[in-house]
């Protein structure tokens, strides 16, 4: 392996070892939370709700939960990891190494991405056992989830780098991300909403993400799939390039 590859894999290994060492908190807790959602909204309330867009409620809700788990864990992992390392100044060890800004950014992003992926895959496998979950468009599904995971990883990096205290991270998660995700239609179809809420939902970017994942699993296409995929790709790449500029400048990392 070249020195560049060794550097990159070590940076990723550091991020993965962090969340693995506290796996009860980083993997166990989010899994429990996801299965509580499945139990409460799917099994308990779901039987009263009836079918949604031709699917049992529990089947309808699982794709959104998988996406939500990946997104929130990717975000919170990266924002917390970066902020903690900034507090301890431990990040100086990576910053004073020969690693390039692009390597640092990608490795820090992958920590949360892989944690979200782990939780999403376990949730998917358990859901397969519990319910009859179809996968109608696997290629679109995988591509959409990877892009969404990477988008929220980038968002976590951005907030972690900007943050100066833990409140800055929890503010974004509690007052921005969670409402956008919940109101984006994880637990319901936006088509059921009365006006003006249905139109308002169309301004929520997470609505398109959830719809893409639901299309991949169930084949429900209440959005323009190709256009949504193109926009998702563009904003994910855009956010990565924006972060890369910040890393090159050393924004809030190098004084």
């Amino acid at each position, binding site marked *: 392996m070249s020195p560049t590859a060794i550097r990159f894999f070590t940076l990723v290994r550091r991020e993965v070892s962090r969340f693995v060492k506290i796996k009860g908190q980083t993997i166990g807790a989010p899994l429990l939370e996801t299965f509580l959602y499945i139990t409460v909204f799917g099994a308990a309330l779901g039987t009263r709700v009836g079918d949604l867009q031709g699917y049992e409620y529990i089947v309808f809700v699982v794709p959104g939960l998988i996406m939500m788990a990946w997104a929130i864990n990717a975000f919170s992992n990266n924002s917390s990891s970066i902020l903690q390392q900034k507090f301890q100044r431990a990040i100086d060890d990576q910053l004073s190494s*020969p690693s390039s800004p692009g390597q640092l950014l990608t490795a820090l992003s992958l920590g949360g991405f892989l944690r979200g992926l782990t939780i999403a895959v376990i949730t998917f496998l358990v859901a397969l056992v519990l319910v009859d979950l179809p996968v109608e468009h696997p290629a679109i599904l995988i591509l959409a989830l990877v892009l969404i995971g990477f988008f929220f990883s980038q968002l976590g990096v951005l907030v972690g780098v900007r943050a100066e205290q833990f409140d800055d991270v929890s503010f974004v998660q509690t007052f921005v991300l969670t409402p956008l995700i919940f109101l984006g239609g994880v637990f319901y179809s936006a088509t059921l909403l009365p006006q003006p809420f249905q139109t308002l939902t169309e301004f929520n970017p997470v609505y398109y993400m959830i719809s893409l994942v639901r299309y991949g699993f169930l084949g429900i296409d209440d959005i323009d799939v190709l256009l949504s995929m193109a926009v998702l790709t563009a904003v994910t790449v855009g956010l990565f390039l924006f972060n890369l500029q910040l890393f090159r400048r050393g924004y809030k990392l190098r*004084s």
Partner: protein
Amino acid sequence: MEGIDRNGQGNAPALLVSDLVKRYATGVEALKGVSLEIPDGSFFGLLGPNGAGKSTLIHCATGLAMPTSGRIEIFGNDAITRYREAREAVGLAPQDLNLDWFLTVEETLDFHGGYFGMPKADREERVEELLDAFSLVDKRDQRTRTLSGGMKRRLILARALMHRPRLLILDEPTAGVDVELRLELWHYVQEVNRLGTSILLTTHYLEEAEQLCDQIAFINHGEIVAQGTSPELAGRFGVDSLEDAYLELVGRKELSRSHLGELDGTEIE
């Protein structure tokens, strides 16, 4: 080939700083055109009061701060345009005990080696050497958070040496350590220097600088105000010791031990 260093730059100084200016976003000018040369193989001391610009200079040399203007070269490699080569040559033991709480002692060294591109077998061998040299063998699986202050200080120095740097930067390495550990660290860094590693040391302990350094520079208010050997500096300020030269520099010569001694004597009489 003789006379050619490992980067092919030929007898380049370990650190060459030219007209370095660092102005923070707050407007504070921490370095006001610093120029400095540390020859390859030298044990160089940088002395100055708190806030003089010592750590800023070190941060600029190691990529932790972005210079406003001026140049820094490490063994002939520009610290900005050839940062990979420049940083590969430097090992930094910072003033803060900035260890990663999630890592064990062994992982701290292993990850650092990885960040510097060392292959696994080489890392394993080097980790054993350093754990042994710094008496950390029985702490290898302990999380860094649980180490005593002295152990953390040893680990910081071992980490700086992990990738076998050609320039070792020690930013107040003996602040707050006990006498035994201080002497142990002195012996170790002297040996490292004897084997060819250049060293830049900042310290508040003047006897440490006198004991270890072949060249000393005084920095104050972001400027290098004097440079030379310990006797040369004393001579330049017209005093008998490095400490008195330092006190002249910071404008506190009334604190001189000789002066206090005279006062003591007067009282006894």
